[in-house]
């Protein structure tokens, strides 16, 4: 499951990782991974009506960049949207009520389109489950695919990604943090132990 800002706390901290976090993807790695994913989407969807939908918050800038690259490849404007899944989460009642982020339907809607959901980290799969529910309230896509920058394993639901930037074997004690240019000033992926991290669990709420 991806690291949400409220649990990862990565927003606004710049790129300075703690001593216990190490860089596993540099900004060049991120750029190359996104380019490759864009080409894979082009190849696998064969020019179908594709729309990209980023899962808030870190998935949104990644979806915009993928849409730009895919647009360059296909020579057309690729519609991009954003999805806030807060109201569909299964752990909503385990934490104080959270602020909502915007949900924007891609131009032209998603009915009949091939929607590629984009997120930063795939972990338990619960975020993606919530995103599928949220998506079904916006319309009926012809197909839904999933693109993630990092797959760190430890799935708790039968969900897999169609496009993966990097498969990252992790232990449950570890934390993955994705920084993006738009929100954090630079692209990077970190892996390590949060100082004072809570005991082992895949529930992201314990990772704050």
């Amino acid at each position, binding site marked *: 499951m991806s690291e949400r800002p409220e649990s990862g706390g990565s927003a606004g901290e710049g790129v300075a990782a703690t001593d216990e976090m190490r860089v596993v993807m540099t900004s060049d790695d991120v750029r190359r991974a996104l380019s490759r994913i864009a080409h894979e989407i082009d190849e696998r969807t064969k020019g179908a009506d594709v729309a990209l939908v980023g899962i808030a918050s870190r998935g949104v800038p990644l979806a915009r960049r993928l849409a730009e690259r895919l647009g360059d490849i296909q020579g057309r404007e690729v519609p991009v949207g954003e999805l806030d899944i807060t*109201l*569909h989460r299964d752990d909503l009642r*385990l934490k*104080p009520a*959270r*602020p*909502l982020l*915007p*949900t924007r339907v891609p131009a032209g809607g998603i009915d009949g389109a091939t929607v590629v959901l984009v997120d930063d980290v795939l972990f338990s799969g619960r975020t993606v489950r919530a995103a599928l529910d949220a998506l079904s309230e*916006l319309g009926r896509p012809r197909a839904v695919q999933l693109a993630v920058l990092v797959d760190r394993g430890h799935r708790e639901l039968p969900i897999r990604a169609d496009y993966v930037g990097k498969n990252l074997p992790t232990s449950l004690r570890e934390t993955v943090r994705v920084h993006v240019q738009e929100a954090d000033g630079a692209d990077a992926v970190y892996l390590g132990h949060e100082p004072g991290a809570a005991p082992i669990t895949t529930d992201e709420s314990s990772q704050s």
Partner: protein
Amino acid sequence: MKRHLISAADLTHDDAVLVLDTAVQLAAIADRPVKKLPTLRGRTVVNLFFEDSTRTRISFEAAAKRLSADVINFAAKGSSVSKGESLKDTALTLEAMGADAVVLRHGASGAPYQLANSGWISSVVINAGDGTHEHPTQALLDALTMRRHLKDDVGDLAGLRVAIVGDVLHSRVARSNVLLLNTLGATPILVAPPTLLPVGVETWAAQTSYDLDAVLPSVDVVMMLRVQSERMNAAFFPSQAEYSRRYGLDARRADLLPEHAIVMHPGPMNRGVEISADVADSRRSVIVEQVANGVAARMAVLYLLLGGSEPPASTEESA
């Protein structure tokens, strides 16, 4: 954010902006094919109405249903309350039924406060209007409407001048609005005949005036209050016609307003008394929009108070 919403003063500046921002996101689902979210599934919201108020009740009901809560409507008329049951016993009944939130409308000022602080129930209490005291969700929907028209839907209401005109004495809407407008940085101006301003109004954080024509050219919002004849057991003005002539908003007065100014009314309107029909239906009027914003603002309050394990943490102390 406090656990209950009893007064508009319970909300700090950041709390109020959070409610408005949340309402903006929740308002978007009104345009979707499926106008429902699973967020409050399995939660029970009781609308406990000791006074008739169809519009407030259906607004809360629509808000709770869009968030998938179970809604129980408890109207005092024809219920055990008319057989002499006390608020306490009604509350204990609701507690036994497992209500997660009680939306209370009561003729007595302070009834929601008592319900929230008596220890009778463990549920969240939301004030839907108590006596002549407060109606905080009305102030929130009014703020949402003002922000949408005059502040591009972001931030607070800093610098806005808001005339609140008419029966301030009996108006819980006016009291909640004065509190919330101050919290959000706007300046409320109460305009009414001296008989319809409450005793001690000089201690309120609001300007007062008896002259509507003098106030109108300098305001961004004019909010007309209903003349609450059902609460008027004394002669507050000589005749309805005279009130209407001095304090009614007609086309001539509306022309005194700046170009961008909006006209609001909490409803239900007495057309021809405090507002003329042509102004109520004019381009400036946002009265119908207030109703739609009411559902969004109440969804935001229900989500923030009931959606998580507790309301979001406040970043500043309550005023």
